[in-house]
C-alpha cells in the first residue's frame, strides 16, 4: 500500500490525467457501423423534407443500409429506365426517351416555345402524348404524373423516417459513421484539396477574405458543407487560399472554385444584365418546373444536351432589356414564326456559354422572366446529361453567389480517392505497431530487464495516445506526414527514456550525486535536444503555404508531450522501480 502511494507521484497523476482527457477527446466507438449524412444540398427536396447532416441512414426504400455500397445499390435501384414517349404534334409523330423531364418547353396552348429535341421545333403544337389527348396546359398538368411518374423515396434514419416524391436521387452526400473524433487528413480520408493563388500578387487580406466568403457560399449552395476553407501565407509573403473538401472528386468542384464567375448577358456586344443580386434577384434552382434539361440529341462525336433555367430580372435590368431589344428588327424565322434580328449571348468569364434567339414578342418589352440556357456534351447520352446537369448546377450556383472580387488561379489541385486513403490507414496501423515492436526489441536487447522495458513501452503508448488526443481536441488533421511526425516524436521519446534509464543505472556507481542531481542532468540533455528539434521544425509553419504544417505541428506536439508530460512521469516510475 505504501508502495502504491509512492509510485503515484504528482507527475504520474498528471500523465494519468492527460491519458484520460485524451481518451475522452478521441471518444473511440470502435464498433460503430453504418453510414451517415455528411452534407445536404441547400434548398433541395432532401433538405426541405428534413434530412440533415449527421443523421445515420438505416434504410432506403426498405433496403437495409450498412455500408456505402449498400447505399449506392439502393440508390441505383432507384434509377428509372428511360421511358419511351410517343409525341404527336401538328406536324408529325415522334418517339423520344426521357428519364425525368420533358426536354422541350411549351406555353398555355401547348405551342412549343423552345426545343432542340430532334423532330420538335419551335412553333409546333403538341396534340397528344402517348394516348392522352391534350388541348391545353391544364390537360397536360392533369396527366403529367402518369406520363412521367415521380417515385416515392423513403429514407429511415436514426431520427425518424423521411418519405417524399421525387424525380431524382436525394441531394445528399454520405460517408461511413465516424468511429473516433480524430480528423483524418485528406491523403487518408480521400477528397479534394485546392490551393488557390490570386493572379494579382499584391492582394489585401480583406479581399482574400471576401473571396473566401464567396467561395464558401458557392460550395455551400452547391451542396458541400463538410469543408475547410482558409487563407494561407508563406515565407515570401504570398497569399493563398486553401480549400479541403472530404469525399468529393475534384472535377465536381474545379470549375466552381476556379471560375471568377463574371456572368454577362449581351445583345450585340451591349451588356443587358450581369450576374449579380442587383440585376438577378432570383435564380430558379432544384425545381424541375423551371430548371432542368430541356433537350438532348446526337451531335458530331457524341451527344449534346441543353439545360434551361428561369431567372428573374430586376426592374432596372428589365428596362435595359427593353431598351436594347427595341433597337432590333423583327425578322422571319426560317422554321416559322418571327424573331429578333440579333441573339442574346451569355458569357461566363468571357467565354460564350450560349446564344439564344429572341422571340419577336419580346421586342422593347420590360421582360423580368428570362430563361438562361447552355449545353453539355458527352460520349453517350447518359454522360451528356450528367455533364449538362453539372454545368447547369455550376452556372446557377455562380449566379446565386455572385462573382469573386479578384481573379484567382489553381496553384495546386489534389484529388485523393477514398479507397487509397483507406489502404493507407490500415497500413499506418501496421507501421506504428511494427515500429513499436522493433523499438521494444532494441531496448530489450540493451537492458534485458522487464522492469525497465514495461515502463518504456507504456510511456511510448501513452505518448501516442496523448498526441492523438490533442489532435482530436484541437481538430488537427492527421495525415501521412503527421504519422511520420508521430513516429519521429515517439522515437525521440524513447531516446530520452534511454538517457534517463542510463543515468539512473550508471549513477549507482557515482555515489557523489543524489537522484535529483542525476535526473537534473538527464533532463538538461533532454531539454537541449527538445529545443533543437523544436526550433528546426518552426520554419515549416510558414514554408510551402503551410502544407507541411501538419508534420511540423505533430512533431512539436509529440516532443512537447514527451518532455513535459510523459518523461517526468517516466522518471518518477523508474526512480520507484530501481530504488525499490
Amino acid at each position, binding site marked *: 500500500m505504501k508502495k502504491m502511494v509512492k509510485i503515484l507521484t504528482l507527475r504520474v497523476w498528471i500523465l494519468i490525467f492527460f491519458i484520460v482527457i485524451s481518451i475522452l477527446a478521441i471518444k473511440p466507438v470502435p464498433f460503430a457501423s453504418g453510414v451517415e449524412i455528411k452534407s445536404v444540398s441547400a434548398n433541395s427536396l432532401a433538405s426541405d423534407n428534413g434530412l440533415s447532416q449527421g443523421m445515420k441512414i438505416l434504410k432506403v426504400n426498405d433496403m437495409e443500409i450498412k455500408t456505402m455500397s449498400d447505399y449506392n445499390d439502393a440508390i441505383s435501384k432507384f434509377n428509372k429506365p428511360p421511358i419511351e414517349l410517343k409525341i404527336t404534334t401538328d406536324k408529325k409523330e415522334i418517339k423520344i426517351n426521357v428519364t425525368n423531364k420533358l426536354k422541350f418547353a411549351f406555353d398555355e396552348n401547348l405551342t412549343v416555345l423552345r426545343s432542340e429535341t430532334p423532330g420538335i421545333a419551335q412553333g409546333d403544337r403538341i396534340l397528344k402524348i402517348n394516348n392522352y389527348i391534350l388541348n391545353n396546359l391544364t390537360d397536360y398538368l392533369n396527366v403529367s404524373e402518369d406520363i412521367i411518374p415521380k417515385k416515392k423515396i423513403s429514407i429511415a434514419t436514426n431520427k425518424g423516417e423521411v418519405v417524399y416524391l421525387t424525380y431524382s436521387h436525394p441531394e445528399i452526400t454520405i460517408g461511413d459513421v465516424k468511429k473516433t473524433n480524430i480528423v483524418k487528413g485528406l491523403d487518408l480520408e480521400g477528397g479534394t484539396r485546392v490551393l488557390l*493563388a490570386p493572379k494579382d500578387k499584391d492582394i489585401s487580406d480583406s479581399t482574400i477574405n471576401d473571396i473566401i466568403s464567396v467561395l464558401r457560399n458557392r460550395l455551400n449552395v452547391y451542396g458541400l458543407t463538410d469543408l475547410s476553407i482558409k487563407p494561407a501565407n508563406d515565407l515570401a509573403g504570398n497569399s493563398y487560399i486553401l480549400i479541403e473538401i472530404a469525399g468529393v*472528386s475534384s472535377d465536381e468542384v474545379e470549375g466552381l472554385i476556379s471560375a471568377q464567375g463574371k456572368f454577362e448577358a449581351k445583345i450585340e456586344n451591349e451588356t443587358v444584365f450581369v450576374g449579380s443580386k442587383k440585376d438577378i434577384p432570383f435564380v430558379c434552382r432544384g425545381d424541375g418546373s423551371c430548371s432542368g434539361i430541356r433537350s438532348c440529341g446526337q451531335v458530331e462525336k457524341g451527344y449534346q444536351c441543353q439545360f434551361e433555367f428561369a431567372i428573374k430580372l430586376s426592374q432596372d435590368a428589365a428596362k435595359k432589356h427593353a431598351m436594347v431589344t427595341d433597337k432590333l428588327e423583327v425578322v422571319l424565322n426560317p422554321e416559322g414564326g418571327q424573331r429578333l434580328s440579333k441573339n442574346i449571348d451569355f458569357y461566363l468569364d468571357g467565354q460564350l456559354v450560349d446564344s439564344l434567339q429572341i422571340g419577336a414578342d419580346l421586342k422593347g418589352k420590360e421582360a423580368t422572366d428570362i430563361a438562361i440556357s447552355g449545353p453539355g456534351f458527352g460520349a453517350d447520352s447518359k454522360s451528356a446529361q450528367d455533364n449538362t446537369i453539372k454545368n447547369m448546377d455550376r452556372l446557377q450556383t455562380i449566379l446565386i453567389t455572385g462573382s469573386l472580387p479578384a481573379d484567382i488561379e489553381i496553384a495546386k489541385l489534389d484529388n*485523393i480517392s477514398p479507397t487509397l486513403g483507406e489502404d493507407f490507414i490500415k497500413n499506418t496501423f501496421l*507501421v506504428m505497431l*511494427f515500429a513499436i515492436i*522493433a523499438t521494444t526489441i532494441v531496448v530489450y536487447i540493451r537492458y534485458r530487464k522487464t522492469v525497465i522495458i514495461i515502463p518504456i513501452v507504456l510511456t511510448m503508448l501513452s505518448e501516442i495516445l496523448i498526441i492523438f488526443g490533442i489532435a482530436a481536441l484541437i481538430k488537427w488533421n492527421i495525415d501521412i506526414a503527421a504519422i511520420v511526425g508521430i513516429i519521429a516524436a515517439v522515437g525521440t521519446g524513447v531516446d530520452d527514456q534511454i538517457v534517463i534509464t542510463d543515468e539512473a543505472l550508471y549513477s549507482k556507481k557515482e555515489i*557523489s550525486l543524489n537522484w535529483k542531481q542525476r535526473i537534473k542532468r538527464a533532463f538538461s540533455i533532454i531539454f537541449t535536444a527538445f529545443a533543437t528539434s523544436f526550433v528546426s521544425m518552426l520554419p515549416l509553419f510558414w514554408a510551402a503555404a503551410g502544407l507541411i504544417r501538419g508534420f511540423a505541428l505533430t512533431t512539436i506536439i509529440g516532443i512537447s508531450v514527451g518532455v513535459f508530460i510523459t518523461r517526468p512521469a517516466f522518471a518518477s516510475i523508474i526512480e520507484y522501480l530501481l530504488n525499490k
Partner: protein
Amino acid sequence: MGIGDFYINNLKKLQVIPIIILILSLSLLFYNYSSKGQFLEKDITLKGGSVITITTDKSAENIESLLDSRFNADFSIKRLAEFGTSAPKGIVIETNLENVADLKTTLEEFLKIKLTNENFSVEVTSSSLGEAFSSQIITAMIAAFILMAIVIFIVFRVLVPSIAVIFAAVFDILVAMAGMNILGIKLSTATAAALLLLIGYSIDTDILLTTKLLKRKMDNVSLSEKIFESIRTGSTMTFAALAAILVGYIVTSSFIMKDMFLVIIIGLIADLFSTWLVNVYVLKSYIARHEKNG
C-alpha cells in the same frame, strides 16, 4: 576492452573515415550541381507537375514505353504492392504534365478500366507554385539551421564544442543529401521536412556526448569511461530509432513515407560517424588542451 582501447588511442587516425565520407558526399553534390544545376533533383511538389495514383491489381507492364511514345513529357512509374504478399496494388505515375485529362483517357484505354474517384487519385502542382515552394524550403532549411545553432550556443556557451555539434548536423544533412542522390530520392516538400527533422533530431547524441563530457563534474570517472558510457547510451538511442524507422520503411505502402524514412535512416547512420568519431575527437582534444592550460 581491445576495441575500446584501439578506438580511444587511434581517434585521430580514425578521422579519415568521416573525412572520406564528407569528401565523397560533397563531390557528389557538387558534381550534380555542375552538371544539372542543382544539388538535389526536385520532385513534382517543388517543380510542378502531376502525381497520379491508380488502384488496380493489374501490373501494367510496358506502361512506360506506351506513355513515352504517346506524350511529349517525362514519366516516372512506381508500383505499389501489398505488404506481405507483394500482390500488385497500384501504379504511381509522376509526370511534368499539369493537365492530365488526355493522360487519363490513354490510361483508361491501356488498362481497360474506368478511372473513377474510387480508383484514381491525382495531385497537380503548378510550376510557379513549385518554384515558390522550392525557394521557401531552402529558406526554411537555412532558418532551421541558424535557430538550431543559436540554441546550441546558448546551451553550451563554449565555442569549440558548440561548433562541433553544429558540424555534426552539417555532416549528417550533407551525407543524407548525398544518400538521397545515390538512392534516387528527390527533394520534395516531404523529404525536405525529413531533412529539417534531421537537423534537430540527429544531434541528440551529440548533445548527450557534449553534456556528459563537459557539463558533468565526475572526478571519480575517467574521460574514456565517460565516452564509453555516452556511446552505450547514444548507440542504444540511435539503434532504437533506426529500428523503428527501418521497420516503418519496410512496412509502409506510402512512397512519401518511404522517402521520408529513408532520409532519416541515412542521416542517423551518418550521425554515428559524426558523433562517435569526429565529435568525440574534437571534445577529447578540447578537454585535454583545457586541462593543460589550467
